[in-house]
């Protein structure tokens, strides 16, 4: 318990969390502080490229084994199955109708790459390193949850087709292409490639992440300010309980595969996180009747801050205890 509290305190006072809190506070105070859209896009491109490249370089350094395949399969299974659990919980805890519950559930089966990036940096600060291929696991966990949500809707009789164009948009969305592409470049070029661009993708990484999280804080704060009234106590509770349940599923997967403490932590973080980029776009196309204020506010305004501040230290501490790492 002391370890968790100590890690949580360190995490809460880190520059990345305080930057997020600054954004959140500025939004609540109705400050006109904003990160221009193009800058925010540039920051996210940088972070995706850096995290992908470093993951690929790590795989090149350590090699691959069957745990890579098992992790990818486990990621797929988790992404398909977590929405089913989330859907059931939502129906019990929140009273949302089928469409809204399925849309929210899809977000929780998919992942938040920013939470993954923030978690990776906390791991590094704690002296841990996850398996480099967890970047690829993150990529495969983006889309399956959307199919699960549509299946949940279909069960209720309101069939929603996942057309080919939507599938292509989800599978080839810019974040996934850049993340996987950078991972492959890092894998191919290895340590030499990393050495060539290290000054660009390693040293400035935390500073860029701070700015990006400042923007995320602004977005989350404005979303909460506008839509907090939609969040019933049941929904709020779901936004905190569901990531904990997801993290336990990630813990089980990581332990069964035999990942390191860092790898198990990252699996927990991925399974606990909720999407707010790829899935909302897919839901607007496939389930326009679902209320975006509910799923975006819950994912970005409740679960993301929870994971960022308390969740990540908790997952990291549990993974350490479970693996003895």
């Amino acid at each position: 318990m002391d370890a968790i509290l100590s890690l949580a305190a360190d995490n809460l006072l880190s520059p990345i969390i305080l930057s997020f809190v600054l954004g959140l506070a500025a939004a609540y105070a109705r400050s006109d502080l904003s990160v221009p859209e193009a800058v925010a896009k540039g920051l996210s491109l940088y972070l995706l490229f850096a995290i992908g490249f470093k993951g690929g370089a790590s795989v090149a350094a350590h090699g691959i084994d069957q745990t890579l395949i098992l992790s990818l399969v486990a990621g797929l299974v988790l992404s398909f199955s977590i929405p089913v659990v989330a859907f059931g919980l939502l129906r019990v805890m929140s009273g949302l109708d089928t469409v809204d519950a399925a849309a929210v559930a899809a977000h929780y089966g998919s992942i938040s790459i920013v939470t993954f990036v923030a978690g990776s940096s906390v791991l590094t600060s704690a002296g841990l390193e996850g398996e480099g291929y967890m970047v690829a696991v993150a990529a495969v966990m983006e889309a399956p949850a959307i199919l699960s949500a549509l299946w949940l809707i279909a069960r209720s009789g309101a069939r929603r087709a996942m057309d080919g164009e939507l599938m292509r948009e989800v599978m080839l969305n810019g974040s996934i292409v850049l993340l996987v592409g950078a991972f492959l470049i890092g894998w191919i070029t290895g340590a030499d490639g990393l050495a060539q661009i290290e000054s660009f993708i390693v040293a400035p990484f935390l500073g860029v992440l701070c700015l990006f999280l400042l923007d995320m804080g602004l977005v989350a704060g404005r979303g909460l300010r506008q839509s907090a009234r939609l969040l019933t106590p049941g929904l709020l509770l779901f936004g905190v309980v569901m990531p904990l349940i997801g993290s336990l599923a990630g813990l089980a997967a990581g332990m069964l595969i035999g990942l390191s403490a860092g790898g198990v932590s990252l699996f927990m973080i991925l399974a606990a996180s909720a999407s707010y980029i790829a899935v909302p776009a897919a839901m607007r196309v496939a389930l326009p009747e679902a209320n975006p204020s509910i799923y975006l506010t819950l994912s970005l305004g409740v679960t993301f801050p929870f994971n960022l501040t308390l969740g990540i230290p908790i997952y990291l501490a549990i993974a350490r205890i479970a693996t003895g790492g």
Partner: protein
Amino acid sequence: MQTHKAKRVEIIIEAVMEKRLTDALEGAGVTGFTVLPVRGGSGRSGAWSRAGQVSRAGGMSCVVSLIRPEKLDPLLEAAFKVVERHIGVVSVTDCDVLRAERF
């Protein structure tokens, strides 16, 4: 200056549906349109702003097309199939254009 009667169709639609809409317009034989960014607004679904969007899911686009009056119905039928279930506004206004052969 000689002017000609035309229709100006303005469709404000969710950004994620923009490509589907322009594809539908082209399928209906409407090859001339302009896509404009939209900064923000408010409506039945609440207020929104282009600033502070983490994804295209919350953004909107505006597609404007100037067409001959006889092309209006095919355009609206094609557009309706795309926008029917989505947030947005479709409006039609009368206008005058120069160089009728371009529409």
